[in-house]
Protein backbone atom coordinates (compact mmCIF):
# COMPACT_ATOMS: atom_id res chain seq x y z
CA UNK A 1 0.00 0.00 0.00
CA UNK A 2 1.41 3.33 -0.95
CA UNK A 3 1.56 5.57 2.03
CA UNK A 4 2.94 8.76 0.59
CA UNK A 5 -0.48 9.69 -0.73
CA UNK A 6 -1.79 9.95 2.81
CA UNK A 7 0.26 13.06 3.32
CA UNK A 8 -1.49 16.39 3.81
CA UNK A 9 -2.80 17.89 0.63
CA UNK A 10 -0.27 20.69 0.89
CA UNK A 11 2.56 18.27 0.11
CA UNK A 12 1.19 16.26 -2.78
CA UNK A 13 4.64 15.51 -4.10
CA UNK A 14 5.41 13.21 -1.20
CA UNK A 15 7.52 13.67 1.90
CA UNK A 16 10.28 16.22 1.63
CA UNK A 17 12.94 13.67 2.43
CA UNK A 18 16.23 14.34 0.65
CA UNK A 19 15.27 15.37 -2.87
CA UNK A 20 17.52 13.66 -5.46
CA UNK A 21 19.76 16.61 -6.43
CA UNK A 22 20.83 17.12 -2.82
CA UNK A 23 21.90 13.53 -2.41
CA UNK A 24 25.50 12.85 -3.48
CA UNK A 25 25.86 9.50 -5.21
CA UNK A 26 28.25 8.00 -2.68
CA UNK A 27 26.26 9.08 0.38
CA UNK A 28 23.09 7.02 0.05
CA UNK A 29 21.40 6.59 3.37
CA UNK A 30 21.62 2.96 4.29
CA UNK A 31 19.70 1.19 7.03
CA UNK A 32 22.84 0.99 9.12
CA UNK A 33 23.34 4.73 8.94
CA UNK A 34 19.68 5.37 9.59
CA UNK A 35 19.81 3.21 12.70
CA UNK A 36 22.91 4.80 14.10
CA UNK A 37 21.42 8.22 13.49
CA UNK A 38 17.83 7.62 14.57
CA UNK A 39 18.10 4.70 16.98
CA UNK A 40 16.28 6.68 19.63
CA UNK A 41 13.32 7.21 17.33
CA UNK A 42 13.29 3.54 16.37
CA UNK A 43 13.43 2.57 20.02
CA UNK A 44 10.27 4.59 20.63
CA UNK A 45 8.56 2.57 17.91
CA UNK A 46 9.42 -0.79 19.43
CA UNK A 47 6.56 -1.26 21.88
CA UNK A 48 3.88 0.06 19.48
CA UNK A 49 5.25 -2.25 16.77
CA UNK A 50 5.10 -5.13 19.19
CA UNK A 51 1.46 -4.19 19.81
CA UNK A 52 0.62 -4.32 16.10
CA UNK A 53 2.54 -7.53 15.65
CA UNK A 54 0.93 -9.37 18.56
CA UNK A 55 -2.59 -7.99 18.63
CA UNK A 56 -3.19 -7.22 14.97
CA UNK A 57 -0.97 -9.38 12.76
CA UNK A 58 -0.77 -12.52 14.87
CA UNK A 59 -4.59 -12.92 14.74
CA UNK A 60 -4.43 -12.45 10.96
CA UNK A 61 -1.98 -15.33 10.81
CA UNK A 62 -4.12 -17.14 13.35
CA UNK A 63 -6.78 -17.36 10.67
CA UNK A 64 -4.98 -20.45 9.43
CA UNK A 65 -7.09 -22.36 11.92
CA UNK A 66 -9.83 -21.90 9.34
CA UNK A 67 -7.91 -24.51 7.33
CA UNK A 68 -6.70 -26.58 10.26
CA UNK A 69 -8.33 -28.55 13.00
CA UNK A 70 -8.18 -26.47 16.14
CA UNK A 71 -8.27 -28.07 19.56
CA UNK A 72 -8.97 -25.72 22.48
CA UNK A 73 -5.92 -25.59 24.68
CA UNK A 74 -3.75 -26.79 21.82
CA UNK A 75 -1.63 -24.77 19.44
CA UNK A 76 -2.67 -21.25 18.48
CA UNK A 77 -2.46 -22.33 14.86
CA UNK A 78 -4.33 -25.62 15.08
CA UNK A 79 -3.19 -29.22 14.98
CA UNK A 80 -3.47 -30.62 11.47
CA UNK A 81 -4.37 -29.43 7.99
CA UNK A 82 -7.92 -30.11 6.85
CA UNK A 83 -7.90 -28.09 3.64
CA UNK A 84 -11.10 -26.39 2.64
CA UNK A 85 -13.25 -28.55 4.88
CA UNK A 86 -14.60 -25.62 6.91
CA UNK A 87 -15.05 -23.41 3.86
CA UNK A 88 -17.13 -26.11 2.20
CA UNK A 89 -18.98 -26.52 5.43
CA UNK A 90 -20.29 -22.97 5.44
CA UNK A 91 -20.93 -22.99 1.72
CA UNK A 92 -23.24 -25.96 2.33
CA UNK A 93 -24.76 -24.46 5.46
CA UNK A 94 -28.28 -23.08 4.86
CA UNK A 95 -28.03 -20.92 8.00
CA UNK A 96 -24.90 -19.35 6.60
CA UNK A 97 -26.73 -18.27 3.45
CA UNK A 98 -29.55 -16.87 5.52
CA UNK A 99 -27.22 -14.78 7.66
CA UNK A 100 -25.30 -13.77 4.54
CA UNK A 101 -28.55 -12.43 3.05
CA UNK A 102 -29.39 -10.65 6.31
CA UNK A 103 -25.96 -9.05 6.34
CA UNK A 104 -26.40 -7.80 2.79
CA UNK A 105 -29.88 -6.50 3.58
CA UNK A 106 -28.83 -4.68 6.76
CA UNK A 107 -25.66 -3.39 5.13
CA UNK A 108 -27.55 -2.04 2.12
CA UNK A 109 -30.25 -0.42 4.23
CA UNK A 110 -27.67 1.15 6.52
CA UNK A 111 -25.73 2.52 3.58
CA UNK A 112 -28.92 3.78 1.96
CA UNK A 113 -29.98 5.77 5.04
CA UNK A 114 -26.86 6.45 7.07
CA UNK A 115 -24.82 7.79 4.19
CA UNK A 116 -27.14 10.45 2.66
CA UNK A 117 -28.97 11.65 5.77
CA UNK A 118 -25.94 13.37 7.36
CA UNK A 119 -25.47 15.26 4.08
CA UNK A 120 -29.07 16.43 4.18
CA UNK A 121 -28.79 17.44 7.83
CA UNK A 122 -25.53 19.27 7.18
CA UNK A 123 -27.12 21.20 4.30
CA UNK A 124 -30.10 22.14 6.47
CA UNK A 125 -27.81 23.20 9.31
CA UNK A 126 -25.80 25.27 6.89
CA UNK A 127 -28.86 27.34 6.09
CA UNK A 128 -29.36 28.33 9.73
CA UNK A 129 -28.35 31.91 10.32
CA UNK A 130 -28.83 32.07 14.08
CA UNK A 131 -25.53 30.91 15.42
CA UNK A 132 -26.83 29.79 18.81
CA UNK A 133 -29.65 27.79 17.32
CA UNK A 134 -27.24 26.09 14.98
CA UNK A 135 -24.85 25.25 17.78
CA UNK A 136 -27.72 23.97 19.91
CA UNK A 137 -28.94 21.62 17.18
CA UNK A 138 -25.40 20.36 16.58
CA UNK A 139 -24.69 19.78 20.26
CA UNK A 140 -27.88 17.78 20.66
CA UNK A 141 -27.44 15.76 17.50
CA UNK A 142 -23.89 14.67 18.43
CA UNK A 143 -25.00 13.43 21.83
CA UNK A 144 -26.06 9.85 20.90
CA UNK A 145 -22.58 9.24 19.51
CA UNK A 146 -21.13 9.44 23.02
CA UNK A 147 -23.31 6.71 24.44
CA UNK A 148 -22.30 3.16 25.04
CA UNK A 149 -23.97 0.78 22.64
CA UNK A 150 -25.32 -1.01 25.71
CA UNK A 151 -27.21 2.13 26.74
CA UNK A 152 -28.49 2.60 23.18
CA UNK A 153 -29.76 -0.97 23.12
CA UNK A 154 -31.35 -0.52 26.53
CA UNK A 155 -33.16 2.65 25.52
CA UNK A 156 -34.21 1.10 22.25
CA UNK A 157 -35.70 -1.98 23.87
CA UNK A 158 -37.60 0.19 26.36
CA UNK A 159 -38.98 2.38 23.56
CA UNK A 160 -40.22 -0.50 21.43
CA UNK A 161 -41.46 -2.62 24.32
CA UNK A 162 -45.16 -3.45 24.44
CA UNK A 163 -45.81 -0.62 26.92
CA UNK A 164 -43.17 1.67 25.38
CA UNK A 165 -43.57 5.01 23.67
CA UNK A 166 -43.77 3.63 20.14
CA UNK A 167 -46.73 1.47 21.07
CA UNK A 168 -48.42 4.40 22.76
CA UNK A 169 -48.22 6.24 19.46
CA UNK A 170 -49.59 3.15 17.72
CA UNK A 171 -52.46 3.03 20.22
CA UNK A 172 -53.09 6.75 19.88
CA UNK A 173 -53.70 6.14 16.20
CA UNK A 174 -56.07 3.32 17.04
CA UNK A 175 -53.72 0.42 16.39
CA UNK A 176 -53.11 -2.49 18.69
CA UNK A 177 -49.72 -2.80 20.43
CA UNK A 178 -47.02 -4.75 18.63
CA UNK A 179 -44.21 -6.63 20.34
CA UNK A 180 -41.65 -5.00 18.03
CA UNK A 181 -38.62 -6.59 19.65
CA UNK A 182 -40.04 -10.05 19.02
CA UNK A 183 -41.14 -9.49 15.41
CA UNK A 184 -38.65 -10.47 12.68
CA UNK A 185 -40.51 -8.17 10.28
CA UNK A 186 -39.72 -5.14 12.39
CA UNK A 187 -36.09 -5.85 13.14
CA UNK A 188 -34.63 -4.07 10.13
CA UNK A 189 -36.71 -0.98 10.70
CA UNK A 190 -35.71 -0.84 14.36
CA UNK A 191 -32.06 -1.46 13.59
CA UNK A 192 -31.76 1.10 10.81
CA UNK A 193 -33.74 3.83 12.55
CA UNK A 194 -31.68 3.49 15.71
CA UNK A 195 -28.55 3.55 13.58
CA UNK A 196 -29.72 6.80 12.03
CA UNK A 197 -30.54 8.23 15.46
CA UNK A 198 -27.07 7.39 16.67
CA UNK A 199 -24.96 8.46 13.72
CA UNK A 200 -26.70 11.18 11.75
CA UNK A 201 -25.57 14.14 13.85
CA UNK A 202 -22.01 13.00 14.24
CA UNK A 203 -21.88 12.31 10.52
CA UNK A 204 -22.53 15.97 9.74
CA UNK A 205 -19.25 17.15 11.28
CA UNK A 206 -17.06 16.50 8.29
CA UNK A 207 -19.63 17.88 5.85
CA UNK A 208 -20.01 21.07 7.87
CA UNK A 209 -16.24 21.40 7.88
CA UNK A 210 -16.15 20.89 4.13
CA UNK A 211 -18.90 23.48 3.67
CA UNK A 212 -16.82 26.14 5.39
CA UNK A 213 -14.12 25.74 2.77
CA UNK A 214 -16.36 26.63 -0.16
CA UNK A 215 -15.45 30.00 -1.58
CA UNK A 216 -18.10 32.66 -0.98
CA UNK A 217 -17.25 34.31 -4.29
CA UNK A 218 -18.70 31.31 -6.06
CA UNK A 219 -22.08 32.02 -4.47
CA UNK A 220 -21.83 35.71 -5.32
CA UNK A 221 -20.97 34.94 -8.90
CA UNK A 222 -23.85 32.48 -9.10
CA UNK A 223 -26.27 35.07 -7.73
CA UNK A 224 -25.14 37.62 -10.25
CA UNK A 225 -25.78 35.02 -12.91
CA UNK A 226 -29.28 34.71 -11.51
CA UNK A 227 -29.01 31.36 -9.77
CA UNK A 228 -31.59 30.77 -7.05
CA UNK A 229 -31.06 28.93 -3.79
CA UNK A 230 -31.65 25.52 -5.31
CA UNK A 231 -29.31 26.11 -8.21
CA UNK A 232 -26.63 27.41 -5.84
CA UNK A 233 -26.95 24.30 -3.69
CA UNK A 234 -26.95 22.02 -6.70
CA UNK A 235 -24.11 23.62 -8.63
CA UNK A 236 -21.84 24.95 -5.88
CA UNK A 237 -22.53 23.44 -2.49
CA UNK A 238 -22.87 19.80 -3.51
CA UNK A 239 -19.85 19.75 -5.85
CA UNK A 240 -17.93 21.56 -3.09
CA UNK A 241 -18.43 18.72 -0.62
CA UNK A 242 -18.07 15.95 -3.19
CA UNK A 243 -14.58 14.82 -2.11
CA UNK A 244 -15.82 14.47 1.47
CA UNK A 245 -18.88 12.58 0.28
CA UNK A 246 -16.79 10.14 -1.71
CA UNK A 247 -14.28 9.58 1.07
CA UNK A 248 -17.07 8.82 3.52
CA UNK A 249 -18.85 6.64 0.98
CA UNK A 250 -15.73 4.52 0.53
CA UNK A 251 -15.35 4.20 4.29
CA UNK A 252 -19.03 3.27 4.62
CA UNK A 253 -18.66 0.63 1.94
CA UNK A 254 -15.61 -0.70 3.78
CA UNK A 255 -17.68 -1.34 6.90
CA UNK A 256 -20.56 -2.79 4.90
CA UNK A 257 -20.00 -6.37 6.04
CA UNK A 258 -19.29 -5.49 9.63
CA UNK A 259 -22.83 -4.26 10.21
CA UNK A 260 -23.23 -3.31 13.86
CA UNK A 261 -22.21 -6.62 15.35
CA UNK A 262 -22.41 -5.40 18.92
CA UNK A 263 -25.78 -3.76 18.45
CA UNK A 264 -27.34 -6.76 16.74
CA UNK A 265 -25.96 -8.98 19.48
CA UNK A 266 -27.57 -6.76 22.09
CA UNK A 267 -31.00 -6.34 20.55
CA UNK A 268 -31.70 -9.58 18.70
CA UNK A 269 -33.22 -12.72 20.17
CA UNK A 270 -34.03 -16.18 18.83
CA UNK A 271 -37.44 -14.95 17.66
CA UNK A 272 -35.87 -12.31 15.42
CA UNK A 273 -33.04 -14.50 14.08
CA UNK A 274 -34.74 -14.88 10.67
CA UNK A 275 -33.96 -11.25 9.85
CA UNK A 276 -31.54 -10.18 12.59
CA UNK A 277 -28.87 -12.83 12.51
CA UNK A 278 -25.85 -11.54 10.58
CA UNK A 279 -22.57 -13.20 9.67
CA UNK A 280 -20.74 -11.83 12.68
CA UNK A 281 -23.41 -12.82 15.20
CA UNK A 282 -23.69 -16.27 13.64
CA UNK A 283 -19.96 -16.79 13.82
CA UNK A 284 -20.06 -15.54 17.40
CA UNK A 285 -22.56 -18.27 18.26
CA UNK A 286 -20.73 -20.93 16.28
CA UNK A 287 -17.40 -19.99 17.83
CA UNK A 288 -18.12 -18.80 21.34
CA UNK A 289 -21.30 -20.68 22.18
CA UNK A 290 -20.77 -23.94 20.28
CA UNK A 291 -16.95 -23.84 20.54
CA UNK A 292 -16.45 -24.67 16.88
CA UNK A 293 -13.46 -22.38 16.49
CA UNK A 294 -12.19 -23.51 13.10
CA UNK A 295 -15.58 -23.27 11.47
CA UNK A 296 -16.20 -19.82 12.96
CA UNK A 297 -12.73 -18.67 11.89
CA UNK A 298 -13.48 -19.75 8.31
CA UNK A 299 -16.68 -17.67 8.34
CA UNK A 300 -14.84 -14.72 9.86
CA UNK A 301 -12.07 -14.90 7.29
CA UNK A 302 -14.64 -14.93 4.50
CA UNK A 303 -16.30 -11.86 6.02
CA UNK A 304 -13.02 -9.94 6.38
CA UNK A 305 -11.89 -10.78 2.86
CA UNK A 306 -15.17 -9.51 1.41
CA UNK A 307 -14.84 -6.36 3.51
CA UNK A 308 -11.29 -5.76 2.31
CA UNK A 309 -12.26 -6.46 -1.31
CA UNK A 310 -15.16 -4.02 -1.06
CA UNK A 311 -13.07 -1.17 0.24
CA UNK A 312 -10.25 -1.81 -2.23
CA UNK A 313 -12.65 -1.90 -5.18
CA UNK A 314 -14.60 1.13 -4.00
CA UNK A 315 -11.34 3.00 -3.66
CA UNK A 316 -10.10 1.93 -7.08
CA UNK A 317 -13.40 2.73 -8.80
CA UNK A 318 -13.54 6.11 -7.14
CA UNK A 319 -9.98 6.93 -8.11
CA UNK A 320 -10.63 6.01 -11.74
CA UNK A 321 -13.98 7.73 -12.08
CA UNK A 322 -13.90 10.81 -9.87
CA UNK A 323 -10.25 11.07 -8.96
CA UNK A 324 -10.79 10.96 -5.19
CA UNK A 325 -9.48 8.08 -3.15
CA UNK A 326 -8.38 7.18 0.34
CA UNK A 327 -4.86 6.34 -0.77
Amino acid at each position, binding site marked *: *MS*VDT*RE*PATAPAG*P*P*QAPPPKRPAGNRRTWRK*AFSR*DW*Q*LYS*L*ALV*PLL*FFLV*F*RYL*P*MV*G*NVIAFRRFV*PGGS*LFGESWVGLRYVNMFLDDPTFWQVFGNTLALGTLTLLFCFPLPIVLALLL*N*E*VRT*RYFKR*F*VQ*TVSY*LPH*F*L*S*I*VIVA*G*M*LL*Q*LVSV*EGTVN*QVVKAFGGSPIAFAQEPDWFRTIYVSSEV*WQTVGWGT*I*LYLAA*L*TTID*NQLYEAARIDGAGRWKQTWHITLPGIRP*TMITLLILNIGTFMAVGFEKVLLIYNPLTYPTADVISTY*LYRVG*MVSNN*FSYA*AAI*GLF*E*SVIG*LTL*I*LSANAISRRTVGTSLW
Partner: protein
Amino acid sequence: MTTDPTRLAEKMAAPTAPKRTALDDSRGYRAFRKVNAVVLLVVVAVTLYPFVNVVAQSFSDEQHILAGRVNLLPRGFNLETYKVVMSDSAFWNSYANTVLYTVTATAISLVLTTTYAYVLSKHHLKGRGLLIGISVFTMFFNGGLIPNYVLISELGMKNTLWAIVLPNAISVFNLLVMKAFFESLPKELEEAAAIDGLNTYGILLRVVLPLSKAVVATMILFYAVANWNSWFSAFLYFDRSDLFPVTVYLRNMISGASTATSVGGAQSDLTQINSNIKAVTMVLTVLPIIAVYPFIQKYFVSGVMLGAVKQ
Protein backbone atom coordinates in the same frame (compact mmCIF):
# COMPACT_ATOMS: atom_id res chain seq x y z
CA MET B 1 -6.29 24.52 7.38
CA THR B 2 -5.74 25.50 10.96
CA THR B 3 -4.38 22.62 12.97
CA ASP B 4 -4.91 23.77 16.53
CA PRO B 5 -8.01 21.84 17.61
CA THR B 6 -9.44 24.64 19.71
CA ARG B 7 -9.13 27.14 16.90
CA LEU B 8 -10.65 24.64 14.51
CA ALA B 9 -13.59 24.31 16.84
CA GLU B 10 -14.06 28.06 16.94
CA LYS B 11 -13.84 28.24 13.22
CA MET B 12 -16.51 25.58 12.97
CA ALA B 13 -18.78 27.38 15.36
CA ALA B 14 -18.49 30.59 13.39
CA PRO B 15 -21.33 31.36 11.02
CA THR B 16 -20.59 29.46 7.89
CA ALA B 17 -23.52 30.30 5.69
CA PRO B 18 -22.56 32.74 2.99
CA LYS B 19 -23.62 36.32 3.55
CA ARG B 20 -26.93 36.96 1.94
CA THR B 21 -28.04 40.14 0.32
CA ALA B 22 -31.54 41.55 0.27
CA LEU B 23 -31.89 40.11 -3.21
CA ASP B 24 -31.66 36.72 -1.65
CA ASP B 25 -34.54 37.21 0.73
CA SER B 26 -37.18 35.95 -1.60
CA ARG B 27 -40.47 34.91 -0.10
CA GLY B 28 -39.71 31.33 -0.98
CA TYR B 29 -36.42 31.36 0.87
CA ARG B 30 -37.95 32.90 3.97
CA ALA B 31 -40.59 30.19 3.97
CA PHE B 32 -37.89 27.59 3.55
CA ARG B 33 -36.02 28.93 6.56
CA LYS B 34 -39.10 28.60 8.73
CA VAL B 35 -39.70 25.04 7.56
CA ASN B 36 -36.03 24.32 8.09
CA ALA B 37 -36.13 25.56 11.68
CA VAL B 38 -39.15 23.36 12.37
CA VAL B 39 -37.46 20.34 10.80
CA LEU B 40 -34.35 20.89 12.90
CA LEU B 41 -36.44 21.26 16.05
CA VAL B 42 -38.09 17.96 15.26
CA VAL B 43 -34.64 16.40 14.87
CA VAL B 44 -33.68 17.81 18.27
CA ALA B 45 -36.87 16.50 19.87
CA VAL B 46 -36.47 13.03 18.41
CA THR B 47 -32.83 12.89 19.45
CA LEU B 48 -33.53 13.99 23.01
CA TYR B 49 -36.70 12.01 23.62
CA PRO B 50 -35.08 8.66 24.53
CA PHE B 51 -32.93 10.42 27.13
CA VAL B 52 -35.83 12.28 28.68
CA ASN B 53 -37.91 9.13 28.65
CA VAL B 54 -35.29 7.05 30.43
CA VAL B 55 -34.76 9.73 33.08
CA ALA B 56 -38.52 9.97 33.60
CA GLN B 57 -38.72 6.21 34.01
CA SER B 58 -35.87 6.19 36.49
CA PHE B 59 -37.90 8.41 38.85
CA SER B 60 -41.17 6.59 38.23
CA ASP B 61 -43.10 3.86 39.85
CA GLU B 62 -42.89 0.45 38.18
CA GLN B 63 -46.69 0.18 37.80
CA HIS B 64 -46.88 3.40 35.82
CA ILE B 65 -44.13 2.25 33.48
CA LEU B 66 -45.84 -1.08 32.92
CA ALA B 67 -49.09 0.69 32.16
CA GLY B 68 -47.26 2.78 29.59
CA ARG B 69 -47.98 6.07 31.33
CA VAL B 70 -44.42 7.39 31.55
CA ASN B 71 -43.30 9.57 28.68
CA LEU B 72 -41.75 12.95 29.34
CA LEU B 73 -42.44 13.28 33.06
CA PRO B 74 -42.07 10.79 35.90
CA ARG B 75 -45.29 9.24 37.23
CA GLY B 76 -45.45 8.19 40.84
CA PHE B 77 -42.29 10.14 41.56
CA ASN B 78 -39.92 8.35 43.87
CA LEU B 79 -36.24 8.04 44.64
CA GLU B 80 -36.60 4.53 45.98
CA THR B 81 -35.20 2.88 42.87
CA TYR B 82 -32.07 5.02 43.07
CA LYS B 83 -31.66 3.95 46.69
CA VAL B 84 -32.11 0.30 45.73
CA VAL B 85 -29.57 0.41 42.91
CA MET B 86 -27.10 2.52 44.81
CA SER B 87 -27.20 0.21 47.80
CA ASP B 88 -26.28 -2.72 45.61
CA SER B 89 -22.65 -3.64 46.09
CA ALA B 90 -22.44 -5.42 42.73
CA PHE B 91 -23.37 -2.19 41.00
CA TRP B 92 -20.71 -0.17 42.79
CA ASN B 93 -18.17 -2.90 42.25
CA SER B 94 -18.77 -2.84 38.50
CA TYR B 95 -18.68 0.95 38.56
CA ALA B 96 -15.29 0.87 40.27
CA ASN B 97 -14.11 -1.70 37.71
CA THR B 98 -15.09 0.63 34.89
CA VAL B 99 -13.13 3.47 36.44
CA LEU B 100 -10.09 1.24 36.92
CA TYR B 101 -10.22 -0.12 33.35
CA THR B 102 -10.78 3.30 31.86
CA VAL B 103 -7.89 4.92 33.70
CA THR B 104 -5.43 2.08 33.03
CA ALA B 105 -6.37 1.63 29.40
CA THR B 106 -6.30 5.36 28.70
CA ALA B 107 -2.86 5.76 30.27
CA ILE B 108 -1.36 2.88 28.29
CA SER B 109 -3.02 3.95 25.06
CA LEU B 110 -1.83 7.49 25.48
CA VAL B 111 1.82 6.52 25.97
CA LEU B 112 1.84 4.11 23.02
CA THR B 113 -0.04 6.42 20.69
CA THR B 114 2.07 9.44 21.53
CA THR B 115 5.42 7.72 21.06
CA TYR B 116 4.42 6.02 17.83
CA ALA B 117 2.75 9.10 16.39
CA TYR B 118 5.89 11.07 17.18
CA VAL B 119 8.04 8.56 15.33
CA LEU B 120 5.66 8.57 12.36
CA SER B 121 5.74 12.36 12.20
CA LYS B 122 9.47 12.32 11.37
CA HIS B 123 9.56 12.58 7.61
CA HIS B 124 13.27 11.87 7.32
CA LEU B 125 13.00 8.54 9.12
CA LYS B 126 13.97 5.59 6.95
CA GLY B 127 11.21 3.00 6.86
CA ARG B 128 8.58 5.53 7.92
CA GLY B 129 6.29 4.58 5.06
CA LEU B 130 6.45 0.96 6.10
CA LEU B 131 5.68 1.83 9.73
CA ILE B 132 2.64 3.84 8.63
CA GLY B 133 1.53 1.13 6.24
CA ILE B 134 1.70 -1.51 8.96
CA SER B 135 -0.68 0.49 11.11
CA VAL B 136 -3.06 1.75 8.43
CA PHE B 137 -3.56 -1.70 6.94
CA THR B 138 -5.10 -2.86 10.21
CA MET B 139 -7.89 -0.33 9.69
CA PHE B 140 -9.13 -2.32 6.72
CA PHE B 141 -8.29 -5.87 7.62
CA ASN B 142 -8.31 -7.62 10.95
CA GLY B 143 -7.85 -11.07 12.32
CA GLY B 144 -11.45 -11.47 13.33
CA LEU B 145 -13.18 -12.55 16.49
CA ILE B 146 -12.03 -16.15 16.77
CA PRO B 147 -8.26 -15.77 16.25
CA ASN B 148 -8.31 -12.82 18.65
CA TYR B 149 -10.15 -14.86 21.25
CA VAL B 150 -7.75 -17.76 20.85
CA LEU B 151 -4.79 -15.41 21.15
CA ILE B 152 -6.05 -13.79 24.36
CA SER B 153 -6.79 -17.21 25.83
CA GLU B 154 -3.39 -18.58 24.90
CA LEU B 155 -1.68 -15.54 26.39
CA GLY B 156 -3.47 -16.33 29.64
CA MET B 157 -5.11 -12.93 29.72
CA LYS B 158 -8.69 -14.11 30.26
CA ASN B 159 -10.15 -12.72 33.46
CA THR B 160 -7.36 -10.20 33.72
CA LEU B 161 -7.32 -6.49 33.16
CA TRP B 162 -4.94 -6.99 30.24
CA ALA B 163 -7.56 -8.66 28.10
CA ILE B 164 -9.42 -5.39 27.72
CA VAL B 165 -6.54 -2.97 28.06
CA LEU B 166 -3.93 -4.31 25.65
CA PRO B 167 -5.71 -5.59 22.51
CA ASN B 168 -7.09 -2.13 21.74
CA ALA B 169 -4.19 -0.10 23.07
CA ILE B 170 -3.65 1.85 19.84
CA SER B 171 -6.48 3.24 17.78
CA VAL B 172 -5.11 3.90 14.32
CA PHE B 173 -7.49 6.79 13.84
CA ASN B 174 -6.18 8.50 16.99
CA LEU B 175 -2.66 7.71 15.86
CA LEU B 176 -3.22 9.55 12.59
CA VAL B 177 -4.76 12.53 14.37
CA MET B 178 -1.74 12.81 16.63
CA LYS B 179 0.72 12.28 13.80
CA ALA B 180 -0.93 15.10 11.85
CA PHE B 181 -0.66 17.35 14.88
CA PHE B 182 3.02 16.62 15.45
CA GLU B 183 3.73 17.24 11.78
CA SER B 184 2.23 20.70 12.11
CA LEU B 185 4.63 21.75 14.89
CA PRO B 186 7.47 24.02 13.77
CA LYS B 187 10.58 21.95 13.07
CA GLU B 188 12.86 24.78 14.14
CA LEU B 189 11.97 24.34 17.81
CA GLU B 190 13.11 20.75 17.81
CA GLU B 191 16.25 21.60 15.86
CA ALA B 192 17.11 24.30 18.37
CA ALA B 193 16.56 21.87 21.23
CA ALA B 194 18.81 19.33 19.51
CA ILE B 195 21.55 21.93 19.15
CA ASP B 196 21.17 22.68 22.85
CA GLY B 197 22.02 19.05 23.51
CA LEU B 198 18.64 17.41 24.06
CA ASN B 199 18.29 13.90 22.70
CA THR B 200 15.14 12.54 21.04
CA TYR B 201 13.52 11.51 24.31
CA GLY B 202 14.27 14.89 25.83
CA ILE B 203 12.85 16.70 22.81
CA LEU B 204 9.67 14.67 22.95
CA LEU B 205 9.18 15.10 26.69
CA ARG B 206 10.34 18.65 27.18
CA VAL B 207 9.63 20.41 23.89
CA VAL B 208 6.99 18.54 21.89
CA LEU B 209 4.65 17.37 24.65
CA PRO B 210 4.35 20.74 26.39
CA LEU B 211 3.30 22.17 23.02
CA SER B 212 0.81 19.38 22.46
CA LYS B 213 -1.49 19.77 25.44
CA ALA B 214 -4.51 20.30 23.20
CA VAL B 215 -4.03 17.12 21.20
CA VAL B 216 -3.06 15.11 24.28
CA ALA B 217 -6.27 16.24 25.96
CA THR B 218 -8.21 15.24 22.87
CA MET B 219 -6.60 11.79 22.92
CA ILE B 220 -7.38 11.33 26.61
CA LEU B 221 -11.00 12.15 25.85
CA PHE B 222 -11.20 9.83 22.85
CA TYR B 223 -9.70 6.92 24.70
CA ALA B 224 -11.47 7.53 28.00
CA VAL B 225 -14.92 7.73 26.44
CA ALA B 226 -14.26 4.69 24.24
CA ASN B 227 -13.11 2.69 27.26
CA TRP B 228 -15.92 3.88 29.48
CA ASN B 229 -18.44 2.78 26.87
CA SER B 230 -16.85 -0.49 25.83
CA TRP B 231 -18.42 -3.74 26.88
CA PHE B 232 -17.66 -6.47 24.38
CA SER B 233 -14.08 -7.38 25.40
CA ALA B 234 -15.15 -7.66 29.00
CA PHE B 235 -18.20 -9.65 28.02
CA LEU B 236 -16.03 -11.98 25.95
CA TYR B 237 -13.03 -12.45 28.20
CA PHE B 238 -14.47 -12.26 31.71
CA ASP B 239 -16.36 -15.14 33.30
CA ARG B 240 -16.37 -13.72 36.80
CA SER B 241 -19.08 -11.20 37.57
CA ASP B 242 -16.89 -9.39 40.10
CA LEU B 243 -14.71 -8.28 37.19
CA PHE B 244 -17.52 -6.90 35.04
CA PRO B 245 -17.49 -3.24 34.10
CA VAL B 246 -20.75 -1.40 34.54
CA THR B 247 -21.62 -1.80 30.85
CA VAL B 248 -21.61 -5.59 31.13
CA TYR B 249 -23.55 -5.36 34.39
CA LEU B 250 -26.12 -3.28 32.55
CA ARG B 251 -26.15 -5.57 29.55
CA ASN B 252 -26.90 -8.55 31.75
CA MET B 253 -29.65 -6.60 33.40
CA ILE B 254 -31.20 -5.56 30.08
CA SER B 255 -31.13 -9.09 28.75
CA GLY B 256 -32.75 -10.19 32.00
CA ALA B 257 -29.88 -12.41 33.03
CA SER B 258 -29.80 -13.79 36.52
CA THR B 259 -26.58 -12.01 37.46
CA ALA B 260 -28.59 -8.89 38.17
CA THR B 261 -31.13 -10.48 40.48
CA SER B 262 -29.22 -9.31 43.52
CA VAL B 263 -30.70 -5.93 42.73
CA GLY B 264 -34.06 -5.57 44.37
CA GLY B 265 -33.15 -7.81 47.28
CA ALA B 266 -36.33 -9.54 48.35
CA GLN B 267 -37.68 -9.60 44.82
CA SER B 268 -34.85 -11.76 43.60
CA ASP B 269 -37.37 -14.35 42.44
CA LEU B 270 -38.27 -12.03 39.60
CA THR B 271 -36.83 -13.21 36.33
CA GLN B 272 -37.57 -9.91 34.67
CA ILE B 273 -35.69 -6.91 35.99
CA ASN B 274 -37.99 -4.01 36.76
CA SER B 275 -38.03 -1.34 34.08
CA ASN B 276 -37.33 1.40 36.59
CA ILE B 277 -34.26 -0.41 37.89
CA LYS B 278 -32.98 -0.72 34.34
CA ALA B 279 -33.65 2.95 33.78
CA VAL B 280 -31.81 3.98 36.95
CA THR B 281 -28.80 1.86 36.01
CA MET B 282 -28.76 3.40 32.55
CA VAL B 283 -28.94 6.91 33.95
CA LEU B 284 -26.14 6.25 36.45
CA THR B 285 -23.94 4.63 33.78
CA VAL B 286 -24.32 7.45 31.34
CA LEU B 287 -24.16 10.22 33.93
CA PRO B 288 -20.39 10.82 33.86
CA ILE B 289 -20.46 11.09 30.07
CA ILE B 290 -23.43 13.46 30.05
CA ALA B 291 -21.80 15.51 32.80
CA VAL B 292 -18.59 16.11 30.87
CA TYR B 293 -20.18 16.08 27.42
CA PRO B 294 -20.72 19.84 27.04
CA PHE B 295 -17.07 20.45 27.86
CA ILE B 296 -15.53 17.73 25.76
CA GLN B 297 -17.72 17.99 22.70
CA LYS B 298 -15.75 20.64 20.88
CA TYR B 299 -12.49 18.78 21.42
CA PHE B 300 -13.99 15.67 19.94
CA VAL B 301 -15.31 17.56 16.99
CA SER B 302 -12.00 19.23 16.27
CA GLY B 303 -10.15 15.95 16.75
CA VAL B 304 -12.36 14.24 14.20
CA MET B 305 -11.88 17.07 11.77
CA LEU B 306 -8.14 17.08 12.29
CA GLY B 307 -8.00 13.35 11.66
CA ALA B 308 -10.12 13.58 8.57
CA VAL B 309 -8.42 16.58 7.03
CA LYS B 310 -5.01 15.03 7.28
CA GLN B 311 -5.97 11.50 6.38
